[in-house]
């Protein structure tokens, strides 16, 4: 029998960008937890991800998932200098806001708010969009992320200059590039293989 698109359970569709926790419902059948082999578990990297429908769907190509997950962790969590964690998350949130990935934006806006302590500024990014005034350093990071996210990419020397003037060194600028680029990968998977669902009626 050919594969089919899943029937979705009744759910509330989020209609705003939010820092609330959202659920994500797959449109295609994830792997069943009991069918995950050692190779699939290696692909998941963290065993806890076996609970996530998103990661169990991506586990259908375990080698691709494993490499992607390990790249993700280094780009966002590597503590060796460069861009502070909060601002890597800001680049991810800005990219997600601009591409229109409500689910991705919720996760990374939450993380950006937690690590920066600037929940109000992060919320302005969600509410007003990528043109919100967040102070020059954050504006420069958002503008660079957005320019790189356009298709074709419009990131240029002026963005590098502005990031430098905002105090970023070369490694930090490379971190902005990799964080925004990575969310051009993540957004497309989350937007095209399933959809967000509000929990307890929030954001709907």
């Amino acid at each position, binding site marked *: 029998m*050919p*594969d*089919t*698109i*899943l029937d979705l359970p009744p759910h509330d*569709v*989020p*209609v*705003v*960008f939010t820092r609330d926790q959202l659920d994500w419902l797959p*449109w*295609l059948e994830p792997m069943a937890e009991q069918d995950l082999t050692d190779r699939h578990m290696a692909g998941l990297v963290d065993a806890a991800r076996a609970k996530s429908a998103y990661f169990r769907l991506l586990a*259908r*190509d375990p*080698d*691709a*998932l*494993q*490499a*992607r997950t*390990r*790249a993700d962790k*280094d780009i966002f969590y*590597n503590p*060796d200098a*460069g861009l502070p964690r909060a601002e890597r998350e800001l680049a991810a949130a800005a990219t997600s806001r*601009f*591409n*229109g*990935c409500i689910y991705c934006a919720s996760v990374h806006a939450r993380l950006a708010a937690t690590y920066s302590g600037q929940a109000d500024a992060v919320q302005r990014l969600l509410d007003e*969009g990528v043109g919100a005034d967040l102070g020059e350093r954050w504006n420069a990071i958002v503008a660079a992320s957005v320019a*790189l996210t*356009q*298709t*074709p*990419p419009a*990131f*240029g*020397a002026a963005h*590098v*200059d502005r990031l430098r003037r905002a105090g970023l060194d*070369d*490694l930090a600028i*490379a*971190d*902005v*590039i*990799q964080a*925004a*680029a990575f969310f*051009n*990968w*993540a*957004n*497309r*998977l989350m*937007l*095209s*293989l399933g*959809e967000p669902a509000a929990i307890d009626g929030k954001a709907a």
Partner: protein
Amino acid sequence: MEKGTLVTGTDRTGDAADVIDHLVGIAPGSALDAIRARRPEARSQSEASYRALFEPADPAGITPTERFAVAVFVAGLHGAAEVAAFYRSRLGDGGALIEAIDAATTEAAGTGPYGRYPAGPLSREDQPGPVYRPGGDVAQRLGPRLAAAFAHLHLLVLHPRDADPASLQPLLDAGWSTTDIVTLSQIAAFLPFQIRVVAGLRVLAGQL
């Protein structure tokens, strides 16, 4: 569809081992080489992603030719000529297929991201735009599997927020399994990452 002759990793001529380094033009010992070395897993696992998606030990449901054809189209939609040329060289001697991909790229070209939001407060930000289906002649030359894939790739590259469950049905109808669609989606989403890392690092290289 004519099958191209694939150039495997072992026949590469003059390439660095790392595809992103090769496409950016990062020389060993350069300032950018040192910057990339500070994020060693990002570098090695970007490369491992490339290998998992384009040189898998078992190509399973997607032929190597299909994988590289997808890449040439996605890079073309980004206007990323050097990246497209890289994947085109991997496609090998696929003359008729390359002509069909070029025709599709010309038909599908545009700028992104655009698309609609779920009806509500965000509707004021809706930016409706074209939905691409390969034209009759191009679709025939691509064959049904790649024609369905290219329609989906245009969605993913230029207006991913327009995706809905129904957008997957033409892929299933053309014989793509759920697992194939996961891999196709990974290829179609990895390339926008790789292309932007290359584009961004090239700009940075010019400013060091």
